[in-house]
């Protein structure tokens, strides 16, 4: 490795000014925008947040409908109760999420980032609050430049107050998914909140306030790993937000009645609206950039200007790299959606979704573990019989009690000694000691495979067959 000489130079001279290698953040004052894509985003904000804020309050079967009870390790989602043994479903869910992400990104770029990511959603909410209190872009810029007076102080106090309130409510809701939310709500007065609940409410609240209020686009630019690795999911046929340079350039201001062609200008009036509305502060006209979260605010902004100017919409629009290069016209973009990458992602996604729901549908509410006693292999049971002892651990994941019969097969004449039927209360794990008796006459000494058959007395399809071993002296 060649070490550049300059690095090894002695201490810098006094006249050298310290320069930061890392750009100091320029605060972004995103301008409000309305239009088709803004409406989509608002709709998604409302839908996701309705689900997030309301779900913990719903009741199902006299319990919280959605509750992830970490203490007793039961995870309730409406009619479903998941146990740690059902971890595979979480895996499947994560695979579904991952492939959905791959698929959406391959088709239309950073859809997740632009419309549904919590970072975007909460930033959107916090910016909305900001706008209602401090006004739009110019008013906010002016307010920040003005000296601190009673008005500015009041507005800032109000904004941060509401932000913090929303953030804490978010933290409270989040913890409400893990700790029954009604008990949680009741534990504020008198203050009986546990130390961990307190910590997580404030931690999650602080993260919401910090990320949506202060960090904003920096999270996407510097912290989010997905933002960086998503570029591998793009290809030249992926829909991206593009500025049509051929149509727009050369840029320049002109009057509405001026014929742009006559003055040698393209359609871009250089109004900078697309830059002003951008939540990450980039200029989309410079082409696709890693900062672009695909929110399409610039499309909405530009379309409004085009309407005012009486030009056709779509100077900034969803298009593909190949379409921009002129490999095919915009009308053919739809045709290029169907391509191997998209088909493979879709196929895998559909497979995993089918497996997920199939697995859920076929999931047995009964799980049984047979644990052999290790202290004694065999014992005399009187009358010439021998006995092996087992513990049957029943897990009834259902929210109704179940009755089971226990039988055993493998050696002729085996008898199960236990009180039958076995009743297992709803959603519990219970251990039942059981002994199996056998007349050992004529049976080879050593270990034999036996199978316990546990069958639900009310629904024969619910059954478990568990292998174990029987020792003969």
């Amino acid at each position, binding site marked *: 490795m060649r*070490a*550049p000489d300059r690095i090894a130079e002695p201490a810098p001279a006094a006249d050298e000014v*310290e*320069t930061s*290698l890392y750009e100091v953040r320029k605060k972004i004052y995103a301008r409000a925008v309305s239009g088709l894509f803004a409406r989509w985003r608002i709709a998604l904000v409302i839908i996701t947040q309705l689900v997030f804020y309301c779900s913990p309050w719903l009741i199902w079967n006299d319990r919280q409908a959605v509750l992830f009870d970490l203490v007793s390790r039961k995870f309730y989602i409406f009619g479903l109760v998941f146990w740690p043994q059902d971890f595979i479903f979480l895996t499947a869910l994560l695979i579904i999420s991952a492939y959905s992400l791959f698929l959406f990104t391959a088709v239309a770029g950073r859809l997740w980032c632009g419309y549904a990511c919590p970072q975007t959603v909460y930033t959107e909410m916090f910016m909305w609050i900001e706008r209602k209190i401090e006004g739009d872009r110019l008013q906010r810029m002016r307010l920040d430049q003005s000296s601190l007076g009673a008005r500015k102080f009041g507005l800032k106090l109000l904004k941060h107050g509401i932000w913090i309130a929303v953030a804490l409510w978010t933290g409270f809701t989040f913890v409400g998914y893990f700790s029954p939310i009604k008990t949680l709500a009741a534990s504020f007065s008198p203050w009986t909140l546990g130390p961990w609940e307190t910590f997580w409410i404030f931690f999650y609240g602080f993260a919401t306030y910090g990320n949506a209020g202060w960090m904003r686009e920096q999270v996407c630019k510097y912290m989010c790993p997905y933002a960086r690795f998503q570029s591998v999911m793009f290809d030249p046929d992926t829909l991206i937000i593009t500025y049509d340079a051929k149509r727009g350039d050369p840029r320049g201001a002109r009057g509405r009645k001026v014929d742009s062609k006559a003055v040698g200008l393209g359609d871009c009036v250089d109004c900078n609206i697309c830059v002003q509305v951008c939540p990450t502060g980039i200029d989309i006209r410079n082409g696709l950039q890693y900062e672009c979260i695909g929110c399409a605010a610039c499309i909405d902004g530009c379309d409004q200007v085009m309407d005012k100017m009486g030009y056709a919409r779509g100077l900034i629009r969803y298009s593909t790299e190949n379409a921009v290069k002129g490999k095919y016209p915009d009308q053919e973009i739809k045709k290029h959606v169907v391509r191997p990458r998209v088909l493979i992602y879709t196929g895998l996604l559909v497979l995993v979704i089918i497996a997920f729901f199939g697995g859920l549908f076929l999931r047995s509410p009964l799980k049984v573990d047979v644990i052999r006693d290790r202290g*004694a292999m065999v*014992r005399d049971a009187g009358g010439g019989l021998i006995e092996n002892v*087992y513990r049957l651990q029943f897990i009834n994941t259902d929210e109704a009690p179940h009755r089971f019969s226990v039988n055993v097969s493998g050696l002729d004449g085996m008898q199960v000694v236990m009180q039958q039927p076995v009743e297992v209360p709803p959603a519990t794990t219970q*251990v039942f*000691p059981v002994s199996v008796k056998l007349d050992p006459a004529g049976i080879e000494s050593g270990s034999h495979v036996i199978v316990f058959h546990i069958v639900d007395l009310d629904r024969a399809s619910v059954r478990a067959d568990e292998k174990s071993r029987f020792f003969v002296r």
Partner: protein
Amino acid sequence: MSDFVHDGWSLYIAIITLASLVACAVLLKLMSTRKLAPGEKPGTTGHIWDEDLQEWHNPLPSWWMWLFYITIVFALVYLILYPGLGSYKGYLGWTSTGQYQDEQKQAAATYGPVIDKYLKQDPVKVAADPVAREIGQRLFLNYCAQCHGSDAGGSKGYPNLRDGDWLYGGSPEMIKTTLLNGRNGAMPPMGAAVGGSEEVRDVAHYVLSLSGRTHDSLRAQRGQPKFAAACAACHGADGKGNQQIGAPNLTDDIWLYGGTEAVISETIVKGRMNQMPAHKDFLDEGKIHLLTAYVLGLSGQAAK
């Protein structure tokens, strides 16, 4: 610590630890003093990938350097609070034993009230309580099932707890005493006292006859006086045993080691040594009480 470790080693380790921390700080300082002059371009590391991809030789960003400094501060604070510098115990006096004991105390505070509320109740009543029975079952599976079996049916040398037959008595008080203090069941070797192997077989057949098992009545007849002489002191003249000293009842066809002639002869000749460990040192009174009730309930079930 071992006797041959000199105190000086503690100092040696402490010095090395602190010197390493200082060395880290010095290294960080050396690496972070360099700033680029305005307009100055940093060099590259010299590697070129994919035709034109180069890695710049920039100084480390200061926020990152600060994270390193914070780790040094963290290390110093840690070394002051916790044991780490040689044999210095740390300001907080933390030990793993202490943490274990704290957790034990915490567990006792959490579960104590649940368990202790049964202490005031009569064991017979506790035995009928379903919640107490569940707790009892878990305790039993943890502490007793290794020997007595998950179903409490025992095995060779380990008494069956469900048959209503008690070596030391089946009253709640007796069961509790057994649990707390354990038991030492010893039968001395009686081979010499009984006589030769034929005499031992005679006694064995007499013992078989006591519980009505198939036996040679002639031998049993011959064995009877030997039994009266050698065995009756503990097992009683009628063979019904003695719960005061834990001598088993020989008339009920319940066998701790086995009821065949061979096993009985072995017992007579070699004697038996058996032990149940005392549990008072690691189970508190509340748990013993619940276990007592659970065991009581087991034999009650058998009686039904």
